[in-house]
């Protein structure tokens, strides 16, 4: 059974337009002009139990709008949402007991209290008996390595420590689905890595379904097995991470440093990305041309150094965005 079901989901906003100057502001008062923005258009997808899914797209693509409809923050205009078989529109509170949310840019913790007191507060919000809260805090403290600062007021914690506490706070009530919106935003690489491995561990330990949005390709690549890409309010790709990579893996990037200048032109299956005389960067479409072929064109005797790599995920995704925009 699918744990998240989204059918024909749509949401429209009326955005107020404002003209410049005094006349504009007067007009805005008496005759406001609106622009209808279709943030989400007829989206469909399903998520299975225990999945870790990446929900990505450029700014303004409709990511947050969708996640907000899934968590009961926004009312959809059209379509159906079922999370754990609960309709967020009708049973917001019931849903809230069963899901957890971490919005990287929005803090839900009291900054003058310690993480421990905050966790107890969240325990009370979810009506969990005192003894069970204690046990749960103890358990999560181990898992997320909070011993050091569990009794330090949140305002004195580093950003990374805070995010860890935010995640723990949203896990106190053992949610079956966890929504993470940009959880690693603004963190340094080491802390990012740490948060990722913790999320992974949590998914393994509790079989929590994870719904992640992020701009950070690292987050997506390291955590998720499935990717949904959304652009202009529509799903443009819903595929496994492997397929996504495979689909674009037939393209190889060859970077070579040459002894002598080579003159190459674009031809079937080969695209010149950069040509600086001695330094070359070409893209080879392996469905049309083998890598060996391409190397022959370069004359192997002339190669000083060579690096053949897959296309980075970052580029794959931005290519998909661009393809969509071009359509």
């Amino acid at each position, binding site marked *: 059974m699918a744990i998240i079901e989204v059918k024909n989901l749509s949401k429209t906003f009326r955005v*107020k*337009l404002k003209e410049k100057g005094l006349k504009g502001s007067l007009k805005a008062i008496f005759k406001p002009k609106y622009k209808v923005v279709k943030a989400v258009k007829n989206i469909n997808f399903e998520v299975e139990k225990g999945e870790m899914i990446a929900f990505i797209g450029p700014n303004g693509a409709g990511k947050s709008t969708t996640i*907000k409809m899934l968590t009961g*923050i926004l009312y959809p205009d059209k379509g159906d949402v079922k999370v754990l078989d609960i309709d967020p529109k009708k049973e*917001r509170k019931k849903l*809230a007991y069963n899901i957890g949310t971490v*919005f990287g840019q*929005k803090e839900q913790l009291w900054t003058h209290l310690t993480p421990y007191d905050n966790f107890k*507060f969240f325990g*009370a919000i979810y009506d969990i008996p005192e003894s069970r809260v204690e046990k749960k805090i103890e358990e999560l403290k181990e898992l997320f390595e909070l011993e050091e600062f569990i009794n330090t007021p949140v305002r004195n914690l580093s950003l990374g420590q805070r995010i860890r506490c935010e995640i723990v706070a949203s896990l106190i009530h053992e949610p079956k689905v966890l929504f993470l919106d940009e959880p690693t935003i603004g963190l340094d690489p080491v802390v990012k890595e740490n948060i990722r491995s913790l999320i992974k561990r949590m998914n393994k330990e509790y079989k929590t379904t994870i719904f992640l949005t992020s701009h950070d390709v690292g987050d997506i690549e390291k955590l998720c097995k499935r990717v949904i890409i959304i652009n202009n309010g529509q799903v443009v790709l819903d595929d496994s991470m492997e397929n996504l990579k495979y689909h674009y893996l037939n393209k190889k990037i060859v970077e070579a440093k040459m002894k002598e200048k080579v003159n190459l032109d674009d031809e079937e299956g080969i695209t010149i990305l950069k040509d600086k005389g001695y330094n070359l960067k070409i893209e080879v479409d392996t469905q049309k041309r083998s890598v060996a072929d391409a190397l022959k064109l370069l004359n192997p005797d002339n190669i000083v150094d060579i690096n053949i790599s897959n296309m980075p995920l970052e580029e794959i995704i931005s290519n998909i965005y661009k393809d969509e925009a071009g359509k």
Partner: protein
Amino acid sequence: MLTAVKNQLKITLLTIKFALMREMLNKVTFVTNIIFMILNNASFIVQWIVLYSLKDNVGGYTFNQVLLLWGIAAGTYGVSRFFFKKAFSLAETINNGKLDSFLVQPKNVLLSVITTDVEPSAIGDILYAYIMLFIYGFSIEKFLLFTLFIFTGGFMLTAIAVILGSLSFWFNKTDMIADVGNSLTTNFATYPDGIFKGVVKGILYTIIPVGMINYIPIKILTEFNLGLTIAVLGFTIFMIALAFFVFFKGLKKYSSSNLMIARL
């Protein structure tokens, strides 16, 4: 059902306690705020000393009753601003998409939002209210009734603020209108109702329910009347229900932080 109410109450009180703790981090500012508010309220006595030097009776009130009127006005104001400070900036909360974090919690959104901050100076108002009661004349019965009325009145002021703030779900630029509306009740609350006539008096017992918040409690405190007491309680419940109704009706229009203003 009963446990749900109990749990909700527990969270509400815990939220207020934590918000108060936050304000008390800076003790000097905290105490100064309270003292200044008491002095602030006290300064207005000058106006009434001057007025009562001209006449023994202003709008059907003796000087002592005016002090009691100020007590009720300060008390209701204090209760609403202390416990429900955020109700008075609800429009801003809605416009900035700050309801999100409350919407993902399994508790009443409205209660969670409005209790999430306290106003320390409002403690000064509440203290001032009781000082006025003591000057007017203390008895256990009056103390209990007075306490009841500053809470019913405080709830009604909060309900008005919630209704005005909820307008932001539908319309733009209503935050200023909400501010004006909220100060309206306070302005009327500090003058005896006897100076108003006709239609205005009618409005003060209905649309701007200053009558229910201030004037009737004064009557009851002067001479107890069960019927009027029940009327005040009934109207309080009605106002609270109306506030919840309007807020949750509007919540369906909530657009989180997606409602930005595009400039041409």
